[in-house]
């Protein structure tokens, strides 16, 4: 089901934990969907000096969380903002098709953490940090009980996945217009 790199990050995840005096924290997902990812960052001179994650979720959720922390540790905020969920999946050598959209949210959590950092510091929210228009629209029309603002990639994407499967598109390659990045 999962390749060895994914299993490696699942069984020995990097950077698990919390940062008590974090400069930015981002959380995505929803217990209803079965995935919650929380990423905390410590920033110095515009660089991610430290990063920790906590994740409730499946193997892919844990592995992508671990991988995103490894990819951006020591990187500038701008570099980190350029990391997409797809980059994370590629760095892991690929994920099963069904996991691409439901459990591959780690980059979203990272972007929220950066957004949080910028907000705390009174700066403008970067391009990767703002929730997409599409996610906002879904939140407005979504079921009230479900916090879609925290769950941009779950419920909306399930419907999208269904449509793409119906159209016979190769979903493993990711959709051409990924609303996240």
């Amino acid at each position, binding site marked *: 089901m999962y390749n060895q790199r994914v299993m490696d990050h699942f069984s020995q995840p990097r950077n698990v934990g919390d940062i008590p005096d974090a400069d930015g924290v981002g959380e995505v997902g929803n217990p209803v969907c*079965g995935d919650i990812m929380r990423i905390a960052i410590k920033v110095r001179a515009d660089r991610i000096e430290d990063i920790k994650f906590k994740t409730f979720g499946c193997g*892919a959720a844990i592995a992508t969380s671990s991988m995103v922390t490894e990819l951006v540790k020591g990187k500038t905020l701008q570099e980190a903002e350029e990391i997409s969920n797809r980059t994370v999946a590629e760095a892991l050598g690929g994920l099963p098709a069904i996991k691409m959209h439901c459990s591959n949210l780690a980059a979203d959590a990272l972007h929220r953490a950066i957004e949080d950092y910028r907000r705390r510091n009174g700066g403008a929210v970067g391009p990767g940090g703002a929730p997409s228009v599409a996610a906002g629209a879904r939140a407005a029309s979504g079921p009230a009980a479900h916090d879609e603002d925290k769950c941009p990639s779950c419920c909306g994407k399930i419907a999208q996945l269904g449509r793409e499967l119906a159209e016979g598109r190769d979903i493993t390659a990711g959709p051409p217009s990924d609303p996240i990045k």
Partner: protein
Amino acid sequence: MTQTTASRRVYLDHAATTPVRPEVAEAMLRFMVTDFGNASSVHSFGRVAKEATENARAQVASLMGARPEEIVLMSGGTEADNMAIRGAVLANAGRGRHVITTKIEHHAVLHTCEGLEKEGLAEVTYLPVDAQALVSAETVAEAIRPDTVLVSLMFANNEVGTIQPVAEVGRLCQGKGILFHTDAVQAYGALPVDVDALGIDLLSASSHKIYGPKGIGALFIRKGRKVHPLITGGFQERNRRAGTSNVPGAVGFGLAAELAMKEMEGRRRRLVALRDRLINGLVKKIEFTRLNGHPTLRLPNNANLSFEFVEGESILLSLDMKGVAASSGSACTSGSLEPSHVLLAMGLPPEVAHGSVRMTLGTGNTDEDVDYVLEVLPPIIDRLRAMSPLHAKVVAERVARKGG
């Protein structure tokens, strides 16, 4: 590929499938290699195959107190459920089109019912269950209408193991012209089943859950009850299921049924002891653990537990690395992106349903297997909880309460 470096391999997924008993496999081989005839043929090769099939039919019938001619052999439990429901609805279309079933049935029943609704052939009532997945006979009685033609209630639930009030529901249907179907795929061979005493008209059974081969099962159709065939072609199975008889499968199924009958009480006692030690041990060793399903009205081999704040697939992967095979009601393992419909129908919050693990024991399991799971599972849950933001919140709240 998952690397398993475990010193021990423990199979705890017998509700998914069981190994074929060696004597069963051996009995089957003859009907593939030597006595390979088509049971419909007139010649001696055919007659030998026919005799073996009829002997198997009697063995399968005997384990549920039925007569051999009431047994239709087919590809498995899913086909039996399909034929029971669709066949009963089609055959009774002149009398009515209302079907009563429950929210916790196997997808073979639920998706067949949904299909009939979409096709405009049936109106279906899906009954709720209580927190232990028990259907009440009263709700069945209340749902019965003048145009009800079929009630389908599983004998025991495949996910959480709850044994349903089949006898009471059977009595409700009797004398009203309502066919009573039970999906007994998990119960057949594990619990005493008597179609006459329980008032059952249609019963689905499967071979590979009782140490027989895959690809064969049976539908019991009480004499005189009308059910439309699904597969048309030749005259096999008294015109009720066309297709060349699966002779080796039937032979294997028959022998497996005979062995299940002989060994039922011994198996049951052993499994219940192992099951209860597993459940009690895990509940005691791991906090925030709950048993799903009924504590006593429960299949002898089923342990279904929710470990809060962690997700089922992560537990399964971790168990697999330790050589332990189990299954989960988590969305991630269902392919549907939603947690188990059974656990949700029982009222479990989705996040708890996501953390469910089903361990189903079998005749090959030992006390040492249970000890091994009791040893390896607590640290797995600890490790995943240490990673879980949900657990962190609960711990923080607890500390705050103590502090205040």
